[in-house]
């Protein structure tokens, strides 16, 4: 019996990593309409949120790291991995802390605060790499974009978690 559960879990992790990776790569093809570094939808975070609320922290971390590392390799943007890691891990931390505080219909809140945390991580990395503290000037606009994009992706995650209830039993 235990073995069956393990198999299902590994399969779920693999499927979600693959899904997140595809979403991530597709989003990279979107044109950069807003000329401000760091503004993007962050659709792959939908998978992180779904995994956090359905599979738990350990699986989510594996899926997140798998997606970031493979995403860097598949897109050829190795330099971006550092930014993704800083943003992704901070976002993961915030989502982990909030997991028990929010109800399932409030998952979008995790999306918002996670997106803000993600952008903070990216600014810190950018400031450290370019040694340009002036980049903090982009912080307020990245909070605004984090709230909007986070509510959007978080809403999708809440919907997905609700609609796929049977899948996880």
């Amino acid at each position, binding site marked *: 019996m235990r073995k069956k559960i393990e198999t299902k879990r590994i399969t779920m992790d693999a499927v979600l990593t693959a899904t997140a990776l595809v979403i991530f790569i597709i989003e990279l093809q979107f044109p950069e309409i807003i000329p401000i570094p760091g503004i993007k939808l962050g659709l792959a975070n939908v998978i992180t949120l779904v995994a956090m609320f359905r599979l738990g922290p350990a699986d989510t971390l594996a899926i997140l790291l798998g997606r970031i590392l493979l995403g860097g390799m598949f897109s050829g943007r190795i330099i971006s991995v550092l930014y993704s890691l800083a943003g992704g891990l901070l976002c993961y931390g915030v989502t982990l802390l909030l997991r028990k505080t929010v109800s399932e219909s409030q998952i979008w809140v995790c999306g918002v605060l996670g997106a803000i945390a993600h952008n903070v991580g990216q600014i810190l990395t950018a400031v450290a790499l370019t*040694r340009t503290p002036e980049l903090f000037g982009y912080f307020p606009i990245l909070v605004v974009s984090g709230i909007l994009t986070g509510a959007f992706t978080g809403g999708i995650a809440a919907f997905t978690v609700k609609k796929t209830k049977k899948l996880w039993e």
Partner: protein
Amino acid sequence: MIKTKTWIMIFAAMLLIFGAVSFWSFTRPSKGTVANIYVNGECVRSVDLSLVTESFEFTVETSAGTNVIQVEPGRIRVKEADCPDQVCVHAGWIADSANPVVCLPHRLVIRLEKNGKSADGPDAVSK
């Protein structure tokens, strides 16, 4: 458990506050007219935009790639770059903005400041 209504109020307040601050951040003027171009935090070239009379271009090579920078009287931009996201190119011209133009993949930053920071000083006159 915090109510959904409370969360919405918190985020709406944050949107207003940070929206106002970003507006201020994007419209505040730069401290000077010297464009300093930094790679990895080191100034590689300075151009005093107020002294530019004819437009010119130059290429900055970084270990990650190249950026073609175009200067016109009073303004500067990244014209071309071989970075994947092209954010620096889409940022367009800056003339008096305190917010820098950045190319994160190449760790290149263009900042408008009061004084030239490169070893040779501003070179708008010579080029």
